[in-house]
């Protein structure tokens, strides 16, 4: 009836946002751990090189995220809606 989102909708939106951020954080961790930290675990601390690598890796992950997002938006505009992904519904 009203144009206002209901409480349930507001809560669901915040929850969805949290979930997306959580998932993104976990994907970032997986990707950068693989790129920057060898899996033999001879040391318990991150060394200088690993730490710097992680910082740069995080920055690049965000850049790729933005870049892919922009590219998909352009593609979907130039195709007019639906997009090139036939999957999912």
């Amino acid at each position: 009836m009203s144009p206002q989102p209901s409480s349930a909708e507001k809560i669901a939106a915040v929850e969805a946002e949290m979930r997306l951020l959580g998932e993104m954080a976990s994907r970032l961790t997986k990707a950068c751990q693989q790129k920057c930290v060898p899996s033999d675990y001879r040391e318990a601390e991150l060394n200088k090189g690993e730490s710097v690598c992680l910082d740069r890796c995080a920055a690049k992950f965000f850049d790729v995220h933005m870049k892919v997002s922009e590219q998909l938006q352009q593609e979907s505009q130039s195709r007019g809606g639906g997009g090139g992904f036939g999957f999912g519904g």
Partner: protein
Amino acid sequence: MDGLTQAETRELEQRMAKRQVKEFLNVFSNLVDHCFTSCIDDFTSKSLSNRESGCVTRCVQKQMALSQRLSERFQEQNAAIAQQQQGGLR
């Protein structure tokens, strides 16, 4: 589908729309992960090199073409199987 009232059809459409958003976000995440892993290998700088940036662009385009193609095969096969047999493990 068969035997749903109008109200049910509307409810179903809303759910489908939500599902499509979810599915799209999934495809998007997989795309980011895959193109990041495939293209980014230089951590001497914090900004994307031209080579990396170009690789990501091509990766997204190629992956979209790939999704598109597999999606067509998927729908063909699915239709064929749906015709051929009913029941069993879907």
